[in-house]
Each structure stands twice: as structure tokens, then as C-alpha cells.
């Protein structure tokens, strides 16, 4: 057996008797093998992606897709790389949707409700329809974080929106024309910079590095031969998994 048949990259290999089902790509019918994701099915049909394709692993937000199934009024939302095709799906992908980011520099802002309502006044126009939440492929409580932002609860908005992949589906659906994911981004950055407590040990370490404390040790290591390096490598003291209160015996290079 050659390696070509045991590993096939992303190319689809069909088993004997694979079942083909009708799927409508932008309204046009293609017979495509079931079990494929929307993304791979569209490629199987003969399309080559430039847009609407990114990490192919559900985290980059490039492939938001909208569909209905014939005979059903409901709109469905998902990521093309994470959703398996179904019979009679009518698909449209949304490679891009305009949603303007407010012009700001984080270091000039304060973490207040006023900052949010000044930069994104449209959040106050939320009509509470929850369409944004229903459109989210990451199952985020989108309306929930917009409500938190309206109240100025930056911490809550940051945490509620943490899984956002910025695909933009929420903003495409919003009757109040809110750019949700930009609001969420601002809340997370305000939280990370101004609300979450800073890491004091990091401040000390940075000043040590900037003062050149480790330059000598690193220079010695870069000039070291392999046997000596191996010796030091093997002799490293390992911090235990449960390291509460642990300190190494050798503190010369800390």
C-alpha cells in the first residue's frame, strides 16, 4: 500500500456506493456526496475558494453561511467548515459584511459606559429581538453582551463575548444596525487593559529584562558547547505539577 492511498490531505475520496444528495449552491442544484461539510461539498462541486475559506477548523470566522431547507421557512446559520450538508439545503455564503469599527486608540480611553455609548451609540437602539444570538455560530449570547454593554458592564460583556470569531453574522441580521463584534472587541480590550488587575510579577520581570539582568547568562548559554548544554539540560530541576510554595534549590540563574 502506498502512502498516497493512506493519506489524502483534504482531497475527498468517496467510498463505493456513496450517496449523493441535492444541495443548492446560491440557488443552483448540485448533486453532492453526503457526509461532506458545506465547505468541502462546495469544493467538490468544482468551486475554488478565494473568499469564504480560512482556517477550515471553526475558529477564524471566514466561512459564515446562511441556508434554508426546501419546504421549511426557517433560516439557519453556521460555519461552512463545521456543518455537514443536508438534503435540499439552499446555501449562501457571506464572505464579508460591512460593519464599521469606531476610530479610537485604546490608551486614550477610559473603561466607562460613556466610552461605549460615545463610540457605538447604536447599541442603545437594540430592540431586544435576539436575532443576533440566533445567528451566532459560536452560540454566544450576543444580545446578552450588547445589553451588558448598554449598562456599561464591561467585564460581563467581555466575558460573554469571549468566544467571538468575528464572522459578522450578528451584524448582518441586526435591525438596529449594531456592529456587535466591534463593540465586543472594544469591551474585551477595555477589560484586559483597565479592569482586570495587572500582573505585578510581570512588571518586575520586564524591568529586570530591560536592565539586562539575563544578558550575561544568555550570552554564556549561546557560547556553550553541546556536551555542557546537555549536562545543564539534564540537571534542570522540574517544577512539580502541584507547585504551591515550591522553590528550586539552585537560584543562581533566576
Amino acid at each position, binding site marked *: *500500500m502506498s502512502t*498516497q492511498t*493512506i*493519506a*489524502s*490531505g*483534504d482531497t*475527498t*475520496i*468517496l*467510498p463505493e456506493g*456513496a450517496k449523493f444528495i441535492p444541495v443548492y449552491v446560491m440557488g443552483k442544484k448540485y448533486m453532492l456526496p453526503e*457526509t461532506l*461539510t458545506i465547505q*468541502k461539498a462546495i*469544493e*467538490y462541486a*468544482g468551486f*475554488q*475558494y*478565494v*473568499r469564504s475559506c*480560512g*482556517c*477550515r*477548523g471553526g*475558529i*477564524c470566522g471566514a466561512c459564515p453561511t446562511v441556508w434554508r431547507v426546501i419546504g421549511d421557512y426557517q433560516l439557519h446559520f453556521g460555519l461552512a*467548515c*463545521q456543518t455537514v450538508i443536508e438534503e435540499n439545503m439552499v446555501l449562501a455564503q457571506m464572505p464579508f459584511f460591512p460593519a464599521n469599527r469606531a476610530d479610537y*486608540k*485604546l490608551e486614550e480611553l477610559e473603561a466607562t459606559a460613556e466610552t461605549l455609548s460615545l463610540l457605538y451609540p447604536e447599541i442603545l437602539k437594540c430592540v431586544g429581538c435576539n436575532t443576533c444570538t440566533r445567528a451566532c455560530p459560536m452560540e454566544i449570547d450576543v444580545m446578552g453582551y450588547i445589553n451588558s454593554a448598554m449598562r456599561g458592564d464591561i467585564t460581563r460583556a467581555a466575558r460573554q463575548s469571549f468566544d*467571538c470569531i468575528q464572522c459578522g453574522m450578528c451584524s448582518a441580521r441586526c435591525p438596529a444596525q449594531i456592529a456587535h463584534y466591534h463593540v465586543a472587541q472594544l469591551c*474585551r480590550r477595555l477589560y*484586559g*487593559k*483597565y479592569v*482586570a488587575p495587572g*500582573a*505585578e*510579577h*510581570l*512588571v518586575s520581570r*520586564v524591568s529586570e*529584562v530591560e536592565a539586562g539582568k*539575563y*544578558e550575561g*547568562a*544568555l550570552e554564556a*548559554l*549561546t557560547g556553550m558547547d553541546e556536551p555542557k*548544554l546537555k549536562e545543564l*539540560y539534564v540537571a*534542570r530541576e522540574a*517544577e512539580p505539577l502541584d*507547585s504551591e510554595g515550591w*522553590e*528550586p534549590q539552585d537560584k543562581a*540563574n*533566576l
Partner: protein
Amino acid sequence: MGYTPEMMELIKRVEATRAARVERVKNGEYFTAMTLDERADVLNKFHPDYKDDGRVAVRVGPNKGDVYPEEFVACLESYPRIDPDKVDFSVLETFTTDVLVIGGGGGGTSAAIIAANEGNKVILATKLRHGDANTVMAEGGIQGADQEVDSPYYHYLDVIGGGHFTNSPELVAALTNDAPLVIKWLEDMGMMFDKNPDGRMRVRHGGGTCRKRMHSAGDMTGSEIMRVLRDEARSHTDSIELIEFAAAVEILKDSQGRVSGALMYNLETEEYFTIRAKAVVIATGGFGRLHVQGFATTNHYGATADGLVLGYRAGVPLAFMHSTQYHPTGAAYPEQNVGLLITEKVRGLGANLLNISGEQFVFEREPRDVESAAIIRECAERENGIQTPVGRLGVWLDSPMIEELEGPGTVERELPAKFVQFMRYGIDIREVPMLVYPTLHYQNGGLKINAKTETGVPGLFAAGEVTGGVHGENRLMGNSLLDVTVFGRRAGQSAAQYVSDFSGEIGEPGLAHAKEFMEEVKGLNVPEDRVAPLLLPDYTTEEVRSHQLTAHYEGTIR
């Protein structure tokens, strides 16, 4: 959907052996680990890095004679996308800037921000969307020695030991020295690190670390880094101009051999255009989408080795391109999860690897490269793999064992993301095993740089996965996000310094080096329609191609 009836039938064999296997683990009995000779044997016969077939010597350029994967050599031994003689710069639209950054991932964006902060005009050109990169896909964390019991000294030892002592020492020193600075930089930009209530960073161990220094942001650390960097770049409305869906196809050099910009291609309008710049940073990432030897990959759609080709043609040598990281356990089923990383933690919690008969064939905690080779051997030579409905092969990773060994609820608690990713497709990994196969994960090698990210071509810098040396022959978890941010920043700094020392006008746009390279390629007798950089992978089926009677392909692009 879940597993097919045929696969469920095979899973019964796994269930039949499970009780005895659980019992053995409880008694501290494990499958016999390989001797060093056995390791060498399985690596030599089955690890893609060691096998002779699938690897050839490159016949052109600075690394002539070095042996690399044939898919990559084919990229190097390719014609330019456009014959340099046919490029008339006088008719092409031209942008002019101080610093051109090619690539919109973590490395390129860091470089753009720093170069802009130093007062430069920057163009950030990327062939897909800003942020389309492997950076967003990194889950686990970013290393940095900022705890009192740790220091850059220990981080250095971990990195160079993990790389089998082959790494470039000056790059390791730069990486480990800058790590705390980068963590602070990200914190200052508002990144949501996992912290204790008092603000102390929550840190964990990673494979091969002697101190806990893995920082994280949930299980989407890379995504959070990219979101923050991208938003920060967008704050620089006056200094950073973003051009998306614009791929660099050739570096430009003037008659003195200095970099003078890049020849660009608009993927949507199919127009070429020119960006003239005093300094250029290549930050285009890796080559996972070449699917070396047919492997699936954890990499982004755009990981097609473009920057390596551009840099190599411009005269930059390669380092460590013989070395590729395969992760032993990528998902092989369901189809929508293929290539998805299944963390080592699953085996760490006690899950066995099993063949079609439900039998163990390898110790679960061999080094990554050995483990991968053993799985390939089981499927290829011994024909004991399990076939999926679309014809992929894999072996079982028996996650239900974890519930029996560590108690009910362990899978959901310890592996939340994997649990959800399989549950979405009707596979409950508490009840049934996962099907896995090695997956192409990381390009250890790349363009050769020094600690200032200089490539040897005046004005040309490179950072991130496109470079080689910092990780030697093996990269540790948590050092790739660190690599892109540390060297991205350094590239931005070095480019800014170069621009400030630059006197006179930007050199004329020249392609003499590409022309010379093309003449060399002509002598190799390679197909004339083989062009690079590839820019995008091609997943068109043979059947569709056979019907595309008038379609024209330029390499992989229609």
C-alpha cells in the same frame, strides 16, 4: 450522524478488550516502549522526515543539494508566476511606502504595529483577510518566563533541549529574553490572559518545560492574540494601510541588490501591481497546505510556502527545512474534523491507541515523531488501520478508558473543546473512541535570519513560521505564538531602523534575480506550467478538471 454501522461494529472489538486494558493500566502495566534501535527503525521506515522516498535534493538556489520534501522542492524548482521580462512597471499601479509587511498573521501584524509606532508609513498586504493565519488556530498558549521560580535562562535550556540542541543559539536567546516583554506588551494592549484574582498570570507546564510558563486565554489563545493585534493595527488609521486579497509573487530588488518592494497580485481582479518600499518584512507563515506526502494538516488554507519561495528567489538561504513537525493524533473522522488536533493530554490521561482488532500496537507516550511513525506503520505496512466512509485510514484513540480510569466526568472536564467538537457530530467521546492519524502540524524550518530578523538581503527581513532556526528540529508547545510576536516585533524594529538609516530614494523595482533564477529552473526540465508561489491550494477533483475543457490553471489557481 456519528459513526457508521460498519464502524460501530468495529468499535465492539475495542469494547471487548477494554476491561482488560483498563485493568492493566491500573496495575501499572503498559505496552512495552520501544528500544532506541526499534525507534530508529520505525522512524527510518515510516516517518516522513526520515524516509528516502518523498524527499529529493533541490537543484537550484542557495541550498542546492539539500534534501527536502518533494512537494516543497517542486515549489522551489518552479517558474515565476509571470516571466520577469513581461513585467512593465510603467503600466502597473504603484503604491509607495516606508515598510511593506507581507502577511497578515500574528508576525506580520506585530511588525506593522511596531514599524508604525516608530513613525513609518506601513503597508500590510495579505493574500486573504487580515488575521487569516495559523496564529488564530493556536489553542494551547504562549510561553514566557515571568514567574519568580523561572527565568529566561531556564526557558533557553528548555527550547534548545527540545530542539535536540540544533537550534540557532542567538535566536533562542532573543526568543527567551523578549518573552516577558511580549507578554507585557499584549497585556498592555488589553489581551484577556487567564489570571488569578490578584492579577498573577495563571501558568501551566507544556511538553518539555521545566517550569510552568504557559500563558493562555481560555483554549483560544492564538485567536485572542490575533484579535487584539488586528484591532490595534486598525487603530493606526493614519500609518498602516491594509491591502487584503493581495499576494506578493516576487520580491523586488534594485541594481545594488537592495530590496525595493514587491510585485503583487490582486486575487480578485487578477491584476498585478507594485508596492515600492524601503524595507520589506516577509511574514507569510508555513507550508502545511502542501500536504507533504499526502498528510492532512492542522494549518490554515493559506499555508502554501509563498514566503519561502519569494525569499529563496531573492537569495535568502533556508535553514532546517528538512524538519517538519507531525502531530501523532489528528482527527481522521468525522470528515469535518479531519486534521483537527487531538491534544496529547488524551494519551496523558491514559487512553490507548488501538488497531482494527482493538489491540494495542504502541506505547502511548513515545516521542511525537516515533508515535507518528508507529501509527503510519500500523496502517500502511500492517494494514491494521480502520477505514472511514471517504477512504481515510486511522487508528482508535480510546477516550472512554479515561472515564473508567479517572472517574466519570473527566472527559468533559479535562477536554471540553474536544468533547464539544465531536459531540456536534453525534460522537460522544465518553462512550466511543476517536479515530486518529498523524497530521502535518508545523514547519520547523524556513528562511535563515539572525536575531535582528535580517535575511542577508539589505532591507529584507523575515519573522515567524516562515523562518527557520529558533526551534531547531523540534518545536515545543507554546513557542510558536511567542516566535511570531517576538520576531514580528523585532522585524518591525529592524525595518524601522533600516528606514531611518536609509538615504536617497527607494531603489528602482527590479526582477533581475527572478530572471536569473528562472534561467536556472529552465535547465532542470521541469514542466513549464509549474509555477510558484502557489498562493492557494487546489482541491478540485480530477473529474471536475476533466470537464473543464477551456479552464486555464496558473499553478493551482484557476
